[in-house]
């Protein structure tokens, strides 16, 4: 597709998605919101694993960090949701950098194992910090009886109060909560995807891929390899944490069972399935993962991981570039055929086929 056509399709999709919540049931709207948080979290993973080559099997922990930070700040400290979101992203960036530093010394399978440890550890830490996190049962973001009574709580010497009851649509919008949530998610996802898209197409993005493919080449070209890797890990964790904020806002509850190794694997499947080194890849992958779970009957849910596993194997064998990679290959072969037919046609000279800026390139997003 030419760049202009691509933007046109993008615009139409955006308008359709914006209009959709007016016409469909709230469960469907919530499903789309779920796709969005999974997509944002998978985007974070795609940046560090797909583009930068640092394999992380622990990004579910950063999503959990974002969700719990949001819950604690809004419920216990009365912080507005927007501020809690910023804090969740900034906090996860710091944690991500802290994890990224030792990651400089280890790569490949070893890094995968260490991050796997992170994923396993996170629910354990949450359970240990039961005072704050609510332990194994987790906590709600909605008011509990008596919690609204600030005076009483202060009398009891507790600093617990509730500034807001969940993430509600402001009255001026005239929207239902689920619709408002979807729009907010949509804007956040759009901003996150656009920022990462710009990044991957810049000198920094090129240096990240160079580090992935050939660290020495990157270093000799003047790339500060260590710095880039650590910051990428931090940024990636921050994006995943934004996904965690969205999770908390969507579900109004957090519990350790939501952020186990299963989530980390699900994110990896979403990123790889869509195409880990592409921008729309995580969104495509997240849609497939969420909808795939949807078609599996409720009583068979425990088999969803098996289905993911099988799908992942098939994708890796058939299309290592994921769904987006498959699309690009198909587009390239169609283009070649089209060019060939045009060239052999009457009245065309060979030089008419100039260097087309739109030939699929490894870093060009569909």
């Amino acid at each position: 597709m030419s760049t202009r056509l691509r933007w046109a399709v993008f615009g139409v999709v955006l308008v359709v998605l914006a209009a959709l919540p007016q016409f469909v049931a709230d469960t469907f709207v919530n499903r789309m919101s779920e796709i969005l948080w999974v997509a944002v979290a998978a985007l974070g993973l795609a940046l560090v694993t797909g583009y930068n080559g640092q394999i992380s099997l622990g990004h579910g922990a950063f999503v959990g960090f974002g969700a719990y930070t949001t819950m604690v700040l809004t419920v216990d400290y009365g912080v507005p949701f927007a501020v809690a979101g910023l804090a969740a992203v900034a906090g996860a960036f710091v944690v991500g950098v802290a994890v990224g530093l030792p990651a400089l010394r280890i790569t490949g399978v070893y890094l995968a194992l260490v991050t796997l440890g992170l994923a396993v550890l996170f629910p354990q830490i949450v359970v240990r910090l039961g005072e704050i996190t609510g332990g194994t049962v987790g906590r709600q973001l909605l008011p509990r009886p008596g919690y609204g009574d600030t005076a009483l709580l202060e009398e009891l010497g507790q600093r617990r109060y509730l500034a807001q009851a969940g993430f509600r649509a402001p009255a001026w919008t005239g929207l239902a909560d689920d619709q408002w949530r979807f729009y907010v998610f949509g804007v956040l996802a759009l901003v996150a995807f656009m920022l990462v898209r710009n990044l991957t197409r810049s000198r920094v993005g090129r240096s990240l891929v160079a580090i992935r493919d050939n660290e020495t080449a990157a270093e000799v070209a003047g790339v500060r390899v260590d710095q880039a890797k650590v910051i990428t890990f931090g940024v990636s964790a921050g994006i995943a944490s934004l996904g965690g904020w969205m999770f908390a806002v969507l579900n109004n509850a957090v519990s350790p069972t939501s952020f186990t190794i299963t989530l980390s694997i699900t994110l990896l499947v979403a990123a790889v399935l869509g195409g880990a080194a592409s921008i729309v890849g995580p969104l495509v992958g997240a849609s497939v993962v969420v909808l795939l779970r949807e078609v599996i009957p409720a009583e068979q849910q425990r088999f969803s991981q098996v289905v993911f596993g099988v799908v992942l194997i098939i994708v890796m064998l058939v299309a290592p570039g994921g769904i987006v990679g498959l699309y690009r290959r198909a587009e390239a072969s169609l283009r070649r055929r089209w060019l060939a037919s045009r060239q052999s046609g009457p009245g065309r000279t060979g030089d008419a086929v100039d260097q087309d800026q739109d030939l699929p390139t490894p870093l060009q997003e569909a």
Partner: protein
Amino acid sequence: MALLEVEGIGVRFGGVVALDGLTFDIAEHEICALIGPNGAGKTTLFNVVSRLYDPDEGSLRFAGTDLLALPAHAIAGMGIARTFQNLALVPGLTVLENVMIGAHARTNGGFWGCSLGLPVRSSERRTRDDAMSLLSDLGLAAVAQRPAAGLPYGTLKRIELARALAARPRLLMLDEPASGLTHGEVAELGATIRRLRDEFELTVLLVEHHMGMVMSISEHVVVMEFGRKIADGVPTEVAEDPAVIAAYLGTPS
């Protein structure tokens, strides 16, 4: 004044002495060839200058600056660019993007700036145009949008050369640029190196086994054997040096 001053550089890997007190100077704007049998330590010296290896002894100055005080990523910014004997391209990027990587040290923009996009757009365009003109200059314009993998070996070597030039270096280090090239390509490469030297006001340090090319394009030849320098001078002088002849042909026993 010498542009690069190599003085008493020694590198040991365990018990193996790769470089043993190597000393020589390269004058600005000359083409200097570093030759010697395999294992003489030529590539090791390249890696020392690139700061990929830490020498055990000796000093290394570039335009008066102590290179050994700098980290590897700062070398490109000093004006030193290189190619690799076994190619070090980035297959996940296009040919054009690979060349743009070469300009990394000359451009600005961190994570934030690049994510927001707008402030760096004009510099990005300049980098792209510059890389494209380098590719055209080296006859690579047709492959600019192709991934930098699966292309003919000679093409890949020229892409690496374009990437090194994108850094606008003062010193260009070429590690066996003629290896794997056909006879015709070698002759063309020799002419290209001389032309680039004049056009970009380069100083060239060249590791090469192809003696025809070395003798025809270089003004200065340093001969190494077992990590030591055995001859240093103009090509005609070096070619007649008994030590050099012995190193290449062996001594009659």
